[in-house]
């Protein structure tokens, strides 16, 4: 076991290393998105003209492209954009002309509320239920909830959203169907997203519980007389901490994906819908800016969970010798 001073030195070194990797990943990611967009069929200038009802005549298209710097080489464009980003500027949307950064921030409010609430609700609901089911595997209650999760997994989000809308907005009109102005407006969208995501989580947590409860040290603890009902779950939770954390981090992007559909159906003026529409319009600055933002969020989130890994299991070093016990 390393001495305390050595250990913190190691920790610092690995954190720097990790941060460096983060930056590299970030740059690679932006390059990826940049390339993808220019490979996609369809050209932003024509799309803009078509959208406003004008004919995409060659001369106007060429002018627009020049205005947006699209006639330059790939490298030039990328460097120009990267340069702007370093200065904290994300460029201007092709279609609205407004700065991307301010447009994004305007819309972040409702999206983050949507994702945060469904994310937290999912965790709060799924983890306890999943563990409980895993511990009580095979009982009637477990079977009932299990079948409900199968149902939940077979319904696409857009269907569930519309069904909920129909049931609670039209047949029995208790909740508003569109918009995001009041908290009540959030109930249907958050419910739809949570339901769809939590069935997945519940099943995975249940599976982990069943598997991990068979691990040697659990058995050993039981043999030592550990009482199942009280300490068992939390003891178990500690050892499942890492896989559950992995599950959470790999599921975060799916929350973004779900929010795109949810925002479209419920007419939320949100960030995800904004990004989706930009993709359709080939609004490059907006796509790059928002993809960068989402990536940043996810990467930082991953980084923090890696930190948590480290704290949870002292044997894990942040970068080096991860697999040596």
């Amino acid at each position, binding site marked *: 076991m390393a001495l305390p001073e050595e250990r913190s030195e190691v920790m610092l070194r690995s954190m720097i290393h990790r941060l460096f990797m983060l930056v590299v990943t970030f740059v690679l990611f932006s390059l990826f998105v940049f390339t993808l967009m220019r490979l996609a*069929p369809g050209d932003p200038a024509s799309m803009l003209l078509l959208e406003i009802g004008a004919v995409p005549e060659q001369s106007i298209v060429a002018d627009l492209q020049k205005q947006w710097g699209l006639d330059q080489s790939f490298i030039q464009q990328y460097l120009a954009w990267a340069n702007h980003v370093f200065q904290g500027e994300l460029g201007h949307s092709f279609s609205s002309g407004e700065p991307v950064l301010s447009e994004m921030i305007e819309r972040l409010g409702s999206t983050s509320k949507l994702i945060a609430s469904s994310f937290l609700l999912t965790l709060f609901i799924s983890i306890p239920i999943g563990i409980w089911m895993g511990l009580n595997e095979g009982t009637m209650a477990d079977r009932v909830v299990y079948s409900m999760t199968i149902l939940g997994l077979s319904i696409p989000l857009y269907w569930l959203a519309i069904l909920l809308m129909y049931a609670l*907005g039209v047949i029995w*009109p208790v909740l*508003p*169907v569109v918009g995001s102005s009041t*908290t009540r407006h959030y109930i249907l969208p958050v419910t739809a997203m949570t339901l769809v995501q939590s069935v997945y989580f519940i099943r995975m947590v249940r599976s982990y519980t069943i598997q991990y409860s068979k691990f040697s040290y659990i058995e050993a603890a039981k043999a030592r007389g550990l009482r199942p009902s009280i300490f068992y779950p*939390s003891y178990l939770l500690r050892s499942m901490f890492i896989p559950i954390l992995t599950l959470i981090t790999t599921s975060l992007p799916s929350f973004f994906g779900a929010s795109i559909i949810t925002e479209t159906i419920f007419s939320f003026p949100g960030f995800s819908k904004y990004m989706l529409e930009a993709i359709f319009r080939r609004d490059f600055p907006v796509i790059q800016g928002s993809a960068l933002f989402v990536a940043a969020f996810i990467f930082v989130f991953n980084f923090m969970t890696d930190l948590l890994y480290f704290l949870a299991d002292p044997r894990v070093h942040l970068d080096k010798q991860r697999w040596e016990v």
Partner: protein
Amino acid sequence: MFGRSGFGVIAVVLLLFIMGCSQHVSSPSAAEEDKNIVVAVTQDTEADKLDASTYNGSRHTHAAIYDALVDYKGKGEFAPSLAESWEISDDGRTYILHLQNQVMFSDGSPLNSAAVKFSLERAVSREENASLEISRLLQKVEAPDDQTVVLSFKDTATQVLYELSQARPYRIMSPNSVTPKGDVNGTFQKAIGTGAWKIAEYQPGIQTVLIPNDHYWLEQPSDYSLVFKVITDPQARVMALQSGEVDLAGGELGNIPMESLPVFQNNDNYVIETGSSTMSYFMVINQHNTSLADKNIRQAINYGNDTSKYAGGSGDPVRGLFQEKVAFISDSNQPSYPYNPEKAKQLIEASGYQWNKNKQLYEKDGQALQLRLVIQSEEYPEWKEMAEIFQDNMKQIGIQIHIVNQERAAYYDTLWSTKEYDLLMYRTYTDAQLPYRFLSSLFYDSPSSPGVAYQDKPLSDLLDQIAATVSTQQQQELFNQVFLRMHEEAMSVPIYYAKQTFVHSSQVVDFRFNAIEDNPLKWHYLKKEAK
């Protein structure tokens, strides 16, 4: 660690909190709601950028706030609007417009020739308007006195009145809308027009509230506020109507899908209003495909196309490319191909194709007669169904159709640049009241810009002549020849004549259609009566 019970407690508390929040939010009181007419729209209005000389924002909002110099009345005729009368020189190069007296903008400033000069010059200065005739040909705008405007063009200008009547970009905006005031290149501040409405409140992506313009010159302004609420999903619009969150929806600005109409039919709480439209759906033919280069095949496709099947037979009988409401169209000048599958098959066989009994297809030299049809369903979801019906129609006459449903940008890319299609589903524009503009965008062929939809020299020559003809009567004769030529050469496959369909709650009364689709209703007539 908390243990499971801890989580459970937190979950319950969270839920209670959320429910508790909802109790505190007050919904608008009944009295407030009565004075709002809520309309569902597909797109945000962009009301903070609604500069009359640009294409920013939704055109319906442009039309509600800004008036045009002349109004399109239908069938190629124009009615006075802000211009109460006008004269056109014989050579079509000079237009003199006489403005109405004592018209005020919503901020109280007067409508005069300076304001008109400002608006037109500003619109002409913008690059995206460059392809319009006024922008191309306008030489100068003069304002000899407050009520007179003289437009001088470099060459014969025949589309001027038409372009002036459109929702944008040549509607009239007050010079106070920009800073510095009256500067043609000034920065846009606020939408100030002479129309029946002005902007009260704008929440991006959520809704726009319009209130009546007290200075409205034409008629009594409304008593109500008009709320354009953004609802992007079609099903959500239907449900919003059902739940009462929205009073009215439909048309191009907030379309109600055709398959959902049964929900509102035979229902006393709702009224369905149907109006005519100028938009039609048709197939673009790629004449570079070897089969389609053969006129027999093009005609066969037309003969084999049973148009009564589209949209459950709800459309009007289809003739040529354009609907009857489009100018220069009469009952008789748009010849078309009646549904006659036998004739279709004869034509195919006349071109040397043989019937293959096993495959139930026509073949030539071992190659089956197959065509690739490209569509998109993002902007026009009904196209998917129509394409399938077309596919079925063609199957009956032995032509195999492969449908490729592309994502919107890829679809436009296919049409305008890659040309990887044999047939492509498209539409005439809603602003195709005068067909010249649409025809010249798609069917005009020249060495520098090959015709997108079809390339035919005689047709392009006719279009050139129309551009140089001022007399409506002569234009009519030329158009007759145009439609005849398009029919003889079977340059396209007309599919469906769209309609404008609106649904509103029965509490909303005095619904009246307007003449152009970009300004679909006379909004200021709408009232609400409690039942």
